[in-house]
């Protein structure tokens, strides 16, 4: 499936399950900061992409390790810690961003 050997699919599923909340919440932070701006779309991309890259590196690194038969625990644990940080702390940043945008 997806051109990958079936042994790497569990890793793929785990990294997707952990990475998606992080990407969603980081995107929400960016959206909260730029929602009140006219033509804020490009600025949103500029703000959010640098924050996305660690997640992308970790996720693709985990899959690469799974394909090479190496240990994936390191990558998965890092993704899990990013997910924990994002789920607990991102709402405060989103609140701050929305307050700022409401004032605008």
């Amino acid at each position, binding site marked *: 499936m997806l051109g990958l050997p079936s042994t790497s699919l569990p890793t793929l599923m785990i990294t997707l399950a952990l990475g998606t909340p992080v990407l969603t919440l*980081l995107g929400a*932070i960016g959206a909260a*900061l*730029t929602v009140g*701006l006219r033509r*804020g779309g490009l*600025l949103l991309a*500029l*703000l959010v*992409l*640098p*924050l996305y*890259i*660690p997640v992308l*590196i970790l996720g693709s690194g985990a899959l690469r390790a799974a394909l090479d038969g190496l240990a994936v625990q390191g990558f998965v644990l890092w993704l899990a810690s990013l997910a924990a*940080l994002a789920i607990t702390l991102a709402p405060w*940043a989103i609140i*701050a*961003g929305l*307050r*700022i*945008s409401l*004032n*605008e």
Partner: protein
Amino acid sequence: MSWAWFHRLASPPRFYGLAGRLLPWLGVAAAVLLIVGMVWGLAFAPPDYQQGNSVRILYIHVPAAMLAQSCYVLLAIAGVVSLVWKIKLADVALHSAAPIGASMTALALVTGAIWGKPTWGAWWVWDARLTSMLILLFLYAGLIALGQAISNRDSAAKACAVLAIVGVVNVPIIKYSVVWWSTLHQGATFTLTEKPAMPAEMWLPLALTVPGFYLFFGCVLLLRMRTELLRREGRSQWAQAALGLSIDSRKTR
């Protein structure tokens, strides 16, 4: 412990005066360290046995990269101070420091590419440290862009503070990227606790240029902050007095 000094420092006219008195010392110290360090490193230090003379760019590349990361940490601290204690001077610091940090990141990337071409054979590789420094550059760019995009200054201050704090997660990733991923970029040149793996003739100029760069950064930051304070509070009495005094003293000559 009394925090009164902290709140006293946050008053613009006091900071303006203190920065004005500090600037000549910082400027002279930075100039001396930079000139001595650069001339020594670029001209007189011995060439590396493997890399030849291209190793000399170390004396610019390393301080610039260190400063790029330190500046972002400074932005995050300024963001916290601005949000928690609502001190406007912290926002002035954030606004003034961001372009300097961005320039240092760009300088580190460019000097790194110049160093990489003869030594690694490539201008750019998607190595962990290079990629994370590039992310830092984009973070700076986004921060500066966000500050310009929001017209209300208080909202802009809060937004930039939030973004600076969110992005500071990247700085430990950069610092430890050479430890976690051994791809291409070499490990740390020196740590605070161990002697560097270089002979003294090679790391002594570095010990001069690194403080020189930091003092230069301090100098430029204070200059920019003073200008920004005058721009923001130009109509206030202390600013008129500060400007009026310098004009009057020129008239009496």
